[in-house]
């Protein structure tokens, strides 16, 4: 008996040793510091949001994920912004913008009131530094400033403190829209430079500011990022120096909660104020509850099937008749009932809600098995065929792509097409093959990285998503040419018309089947007002108000 006690004691002792050894080497973290901010006189307004995060960096030069804009959007300002009231960008840091006759130079005047959270003035030098850095870092932001062929921003001039002139290599009808994205966030150059920020072409190897920017913000937005701990939480506090209208909440805690069920329970119990990652099936159980509101809205996330046009890669599905047969064989109504209420099916790859988008397809009547079989009969495989169907482990808006794949399998069986679902890991090769355009038949999703329909033109023949389906420009030169035409078209009405034409032309004849535009469901406590899904930020935190 004594010996057993000795063993136990020794075990405990050892554990303690391991623990203290670790504890000693730990620097005091922010948890300790935040204690001191307690005890202010007035009651602090605190908002707690639960999220399954996908972000890992808040450096605007690197971030691209779905939820990063929610944070970067309130900690940084951009020259223009998308407001909830309008589809067109409105000035934010800029007070006005003049576009040159040839569409190649944009002259922005910076609002003289604008200051960073640090107290520094926002100047043209900050804008130049931020844009140069984003462009030269050669990471995610760069892709929005300059494309693979070197088209985009070529030069930035700063004639005086409040004026920035941006020169483009060719006209871009969506340039103002692009400046609203987080890639164009304006950084406090003094702070970023002091922490290793570099904006010239040596940036990719030499810039070390990401470490700093991951843990605190250096912008002029209404909030500052107080702390970020991956797999734990992120804390935003009100920027006392904010130059615009002050938001209502003093402190916003974004708690990591990867499990949607926990989010659902926590919000119903009042432990958190907003739950962000709920599916339609989960919502069904709470709509009757009285303490919370269910908010839903359409997202710009669209799911699509890709059928590669190159027979060597796409095999049977490269045949245009097979592509049509598949288009009419799918049970979109059933697929939408998996994704949930509010799902729509855009005519083609331009999401409903964008400039020029046509009315969505009526999914109740679209499916036509007879037509599908007739198309299949015209193809070289009238009796059907068997084909592999790789699917990644991703889950847009919480709906696993494999679930969609299972439904697709069952639908296609009805016209004699048998697909073998091959689960793949996104990082373990699928992503590379998708990028390189070597997947024959698959299901994927897409979300725009800036709020403009031009974003969607990447699906056109010859463009980079089109390439992934082997849709080269020579397969449809007329359609491919429309890309350039729309990019250069600065008249919004004409651009809308052209975008409409693109949808008509691709509704039935394209290697993509856009099966759904996903909805988003949010459950929020009734204490929080103005909760809305935002396609730009996921949620505009500055709008939120605490009920009295």
């Amino acid at each position, binding site marked *: 008996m004594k010996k057993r006690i000795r063993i136990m004691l020794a075990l405990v002792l050892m554990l303690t040793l391991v*623990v203290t050894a670790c504890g000693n080497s730990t620097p005091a973290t922010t*948890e300790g510091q935040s204690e001191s901010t307690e005890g202010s006189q007035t009651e602090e307004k605190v908002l707690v949001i639960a999220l399954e995060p996908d972000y890992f960096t808040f450096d605007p030069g690197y971030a691209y994920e779905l939820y990063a804009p929610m944070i970067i959007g309130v900690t940084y300002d951009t020259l223009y912004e998308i407001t909830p009231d309008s589809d067109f960008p409105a000035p934010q840091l800029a007070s006005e913008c003049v576009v040159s006759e040839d569409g190649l130079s944009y002259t922005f005047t910076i609002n003289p009131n604008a200051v960073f959270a640090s107290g520094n003035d926002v100047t043209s030098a900050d804008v130049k530094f931020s844009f140069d850095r984003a462009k030269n870092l050669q990471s995610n932001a760069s892709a929005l400033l300059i494309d693979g062929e070197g088209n985009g921003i070529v030069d930035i001039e700063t004639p005086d403190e409040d004026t920035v002139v941006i020169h483009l290599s060719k006209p871009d009808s969506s340039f103002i829209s692009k400046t609203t994205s987080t890639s164009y966030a304006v950084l406090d150059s003094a702070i970023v430079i002091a922490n290793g920020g570099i904006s010239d072409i040596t940036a990719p190897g030499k810039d070390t500011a990401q470490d700093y920017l991951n843990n605190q913000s250096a912008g002029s937005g209404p909030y500052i990022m107080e702390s970020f701990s991956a797999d734990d939480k992120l804390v935003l506090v009100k920027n006392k120096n904010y130059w615009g209208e002050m938001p209502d909440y003093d402190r916003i805690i974004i*708690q990591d909660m990867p499990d949607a069920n926990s989010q659902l329970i926590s919000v119903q119990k009042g432990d958190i104020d907003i739950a962000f990652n709920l599916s339609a099936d989960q919502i069904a159980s709470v709509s009757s509850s009285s303490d919370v509101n269910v908010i839903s809205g359409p997202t710009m996330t669209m799911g699509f099937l890709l059928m590669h046009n190159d027979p060597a890669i796409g095999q049977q599905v490269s045949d245009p008749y097979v592509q049509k047969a598949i288009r009419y064989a799918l049970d979109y109504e059933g697929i939408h009932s998996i994704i949930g209420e509010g799902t729509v099916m855009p005519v083609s790859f331009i999401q409903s809600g964008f400039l020029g988008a046509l009315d969505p397809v009526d999914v109740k009547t679209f499916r036509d098995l007879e037509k599908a079989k007739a198309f299949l009969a015209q193809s070289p495989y009238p009796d059907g065929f068997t084909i592999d169907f790789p699917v990644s482990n991703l889950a847009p808006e919480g709906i696993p792509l494999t679930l969609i794949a299972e439904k697709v399998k069952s639908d296609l069986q009805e016209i004699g097409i048998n697909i073998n679902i091959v689960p793949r890991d996104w*990082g*373990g090769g699928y992503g590379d093959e998708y990028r390189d355009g070597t997947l024959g038949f698959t299901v994927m999703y897409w979300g725009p990285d800036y709020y403009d329909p031009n974003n969607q033109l990447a699906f056109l023949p010859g463009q980079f998503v089109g390439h992934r389906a082997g849709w080269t420009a020579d397969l449809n030169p007329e359609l491919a040419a429309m890309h350039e035409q729309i990019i250069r078209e600065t008249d919004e009405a004409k651009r809308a018309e052209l975008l409409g034409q693109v949808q008509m032309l691709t509704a039935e004849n394209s290697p993509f089947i856009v099966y759904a535009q996903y909805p988003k469901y949010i459950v929020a406590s009734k204490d929080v007002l103005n909760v809305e899904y935002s396609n730009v930020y996921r949620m505009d935190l500055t709008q939120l108000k605490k009920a009295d």
Partner: protein
Amino acid sequence: MNLAKFIVKRLLFTVMLLIGVATSVFILSKMVPGDGVSSYLSPRSLANEQIVEAFKVKWGLDKPLIVQYVYYMKNLLQGNLGQSIRTGNQVVSDLVKNYPATIELASMSILLATFFGVLFGIVSATKRNSLIDQSLRAVSVTGVSVPSFWLAILVLYVFYYKLGWAPGTGRMSLGIQAPRHITGLYVVDGFITGNYEAMLDSLSHLILPSIVLASFTMGLITRTTRASLLETLSTDYIRTAKAKGLPKAPLMYRHAMGNAAIPVLTVIGVGFGNLLGGMVLVETIFAWPGIGQLAFQSVKSLDFPSIIGVSLLIAANYAVINIFIDVMYGVIDPRVRYDR
């Protein structure tokens, strides 16, 4: 002297073992199909070759394998685990940050498991084949048979959602500030700093996940304690002792417990290893910011610097525990020699 030599030898071996673990993960990481870029770049950036190239240069993915390996090992031997691709932090600082949460949960679970396991085991063995033995055996078998991911969902549903007896996920309730950082264990820190609110709150958050984690180890310990007690009781020398007319109770404690302790200790060690592995799912489901969740997220995004870091940490823990157990063998049973 003998013992000291043994420990030094084992520690040296542990270092080699860790090098082996790092090497294996490194090799595995290079077997991943594709170039490991797609998890970190946006779809638009992936289409831009300059950006893809810049990413590879930044993370050294453009160098020949052997160069990458030598470079990595050189850093590793200097204690530099590199930078996590996913979090952008130094892997060491991620580990240091998450380790206390895991240790707190693991200690709580192992204490629960050992206490109940040994207790149940002794009761079972002494009251062999009684109703209480049968029920305890049923409990322990259920413990080792229940899928932890399922149990985690179940207890959350029942005790948090339906009954409201236990708090939900995370280490602390959201309104409560963590205690000042001393050891990183909230319960201990709360106690030391006199922040009893935080202490009790974090303790209550420990209950559900530690029960889920402990169930398997508890069952294992019960079973082993019972079995090895019965086994030693049936060995020749105990039978002889019994034949000599020694009374039953002291006999059990003096002889049987000592001998039975070895397998029990082994199982506690194995159990601890299992716990650290089982952490992966339980921490993820309970949103526990520990090593397990770090491991899960790192594997999910194929962040190999971080995967190697986590594997090394868990392997080191495991090795240290094993050395400790081997040392304990000798303490319990002097016949064990260390020179083997």
